[in-house]
């Protein structure tokens, strides 16, 4: 989380795509979610907690591939004009999620955007009020579903001139969120889990997203500025209990 934020806040090196995993299963809260709402999900009660800088619902990060992408916008005005929307840049959601659909297709998994499946599929999650605590139990039209289950949760944060989108592709169900199947667990798919190793999925996704965005990715390490800034951000925000308890 701190590294994603450091890439967003550092001097811009160009479009940046990052894949990562988690050293231990972790629950992340959306930026505006109330800390007390964590009690609504008992299965993840023991997990380490972090508050994201991005919006949306809580995510149990366990058997997943986590991605982040940082893209430029020269000015607030250009950002607006490119998006025709002040909140999310829906085009970025669509580009990433369409690339994930194409990637999953390489593994024999048929995924669709929720807006395309609304008329044809039954949702396997009962949507209710108040809004579900977990991101993967919420639905918006750009979400990505397999057999009616949401399998990618993404969220964005803007700063002046740049936007971060990060998200999780659920590869398998976590014992800390057993109600949420991953893409390797659908009966119709019948694929071996090892075929969907995170590294393999990431390689396909990198290629497809690069084509979609018109970007040729090259492997880089974090700059010294990004490394230093991530340490500062980690200490002052993500590892700071007052940040976690801010809402």
């Amino acid at each position, binding site marked *: 989380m701190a590294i994603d934020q450091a890439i967003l806040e550092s001097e811009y090196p160009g479009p940046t795509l990052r894949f990562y995993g988690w050293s231990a299963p972790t629950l992340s809260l*959306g*930026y*505006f979610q109330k800390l007390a709402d964590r009690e609504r999900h008992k299965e993840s009660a023991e997990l380490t907690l972090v508050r994201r*800088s*991005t*919006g*949306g619902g809580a995510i149990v990060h366990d058997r997943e591939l986590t991605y982040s992408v940082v893209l430029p916008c020269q*000015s*607030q*005005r250009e950002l*607006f*004009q490119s998006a*025709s*929307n*002040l*909140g*999310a*840049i*829906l085009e970025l959601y669509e580009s990433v999620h369409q690339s994930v659909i194409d990637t999953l297709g390489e593994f024999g998994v048929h995924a669709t955007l929720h807006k395309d499946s609304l008329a044809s599929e039954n949702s396997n999650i009962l949507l209710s009020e108040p809004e579900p605590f977990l991101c993967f139990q919420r639905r*918006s039209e750009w979400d990505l579903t397999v057999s009616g289950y949401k399998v990618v949760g*993404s*969220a*964005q*944060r*803007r*700063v*002046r001139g740049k936007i971060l989108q990060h998200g999780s592709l659920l590869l398998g169900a976590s014992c800390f969120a057993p109600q949420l199947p991953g893409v390797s667990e659908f009966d119709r798919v019948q694929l071996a889990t090892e075929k969907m190793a995170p590294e393999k999925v990431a390689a396909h996704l990198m290629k497809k997203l690069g084509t979609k965005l018109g970007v040729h990715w090259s492997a880089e390490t974090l700059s010294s500025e990004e490394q230093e800034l991530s340490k500062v951000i980690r200490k002052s925000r993500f590892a700071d209990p007052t940040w976690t308890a801010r809402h």
Partner: protein
Amino acid sequence: MSRDEKELLYAESHEWVDVSDVDGAKIATIGISAFAIEQLNDLVYMDMPQTGRILGAGEEFGEVESVKAVSPLYSPVSGEIVEVHSELADSLDQLKENPYDFGWIMKVKLNDESSLDSLLDYAAYKQQCSEAG
């Protein structure tokens, strides 16, 4: 008394500004334009600023969440926050119906009136919105 959107000033980042004289001081009342609220159609959260804070023009003063994106709000003017609309964060559904009266976010006592010079009038702002749409 209702504010007339045609009489307000606007920032490129879609905040509106209504400047008035109060006891010899220039007070800017600030909110988000109707066009912006329309675009933010499912605005779900807003972080409000603190009274007493000194802002520079262009400085971030709050954040909003819409469609899972967290976006900053920028102060169009320079000065001290003297009042905050504390009811607004819990009544965001009313923003759309009444962006220029109920929808005010904060009042700022200007310390540098030159920050008003870069703001747009209604016609220029409408032009920006039509180019964006």
